[in-house]
């Protein structure tokens, strides 16, 4: 049953993702692209792009879109979205104050977690570096250009993605 699988997959992501929207990409890749093979890498890359330029929390955008694409209907989208919010909903209402206290009490664990999140985001980027996303030398140049635009020249993701749509039309 795709709905039950979607529910538990997104529940797991909602419970274990401590790294925000970018780290969630790595969880989704592992569960949705690698393990369940609901989406191809290219489909998934497009979803990440659209989630970045759509208003609202990136995590919600990702959950809704992957749920929809995996199931092909609104029910899958709803189940994925609800499931990804459920763990933090329960945790925060029952133990919000206690969770916050863990930051002092288990400072080392939180610091290790930060290092892990960096690795997870890096793995997400690496997993998207394949022959389908990078078709020729032009795509490599585009990637380097986009990286410099955001990293060095402090452009926003929406500006960079919109510019890349124009470049896509001009170059291909």
């Amino acid at each position, binding site marked *: 049953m795709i709905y039950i699988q979607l529910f538990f997959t997104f529940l797991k992501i909602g419970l274990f993702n401590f790294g925000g929207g970018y780290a969630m990409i790595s969880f989704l890749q592992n569960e949705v692209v690698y393990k369940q093979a609901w989406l191809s890498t290219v489909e998934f890359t497009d979803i990440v792009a659209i989630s970045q330029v759509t208003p*609202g929390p990136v995590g919600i955008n990702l959950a809704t879109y992957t749920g929809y694409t995996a199931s092909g209907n609104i029910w899958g989208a709803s189940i994925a979205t609800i499931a990804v919010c459920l763990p933090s909903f329960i945790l925060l209402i029952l133990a919000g104050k206690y969770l916050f206290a863990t930051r002092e009490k288990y400072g080392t664990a939180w610091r290790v977690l930060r290092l892990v999140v960096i*690795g997870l985001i890096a793995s997400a980027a690496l997993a998207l570096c394949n022959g389908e996303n990078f078709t020729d030398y032009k795509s490599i140049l585009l990637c380097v250009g986009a990286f410099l635009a955001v990293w060095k020249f402090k452009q926003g993701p929406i500006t960079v993605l919109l510019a890349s749509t124009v470049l896509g039309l001009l170059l291909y």
Partner: protein
Amino acid sequence: MLPLMERELVGPYMSKDDFLDVTAVAQSAPGIMAINVAILTGYRLKGVWGALLATCGAAVPSFVIILLIALFFRKFAENPIVRRVFMGVRPAVVALIMVPVFNLAQSARVNFKTVWVSILVALAVWLLGISPVYVVLLAVCGGILLGKKERAK
């Protein structure tokens, strides 16, 4: 999304200190930051129902917009212009995901003594396909043990 939330919430619903408190607790939980802020704000003001309604309010607009886009994209994915556009977008997306790696490494003051943790995680998940779930579990357990050892010294 957070600056927007701050502008809407601070004043009519809570003080600036309350908001900072809410964001700090929201960051201590897993899941989606903006949703966590909504949960906590709703809960503070009106209990569990407040939390539920605030969460729906924060999620529903994106949900609807994404569904509309997904419907549209499914129809036009094969369109030659859309295909060319996305050939440009895909490499840029990869770049967008690489930037936070470096930004976070800087703000976490990663050095030669700690960077191997991030590198090992990246390789394990990317090349070996190990689930991030296990990596996070291991990190939490390892971190707690390490903390105990540090305090014992």
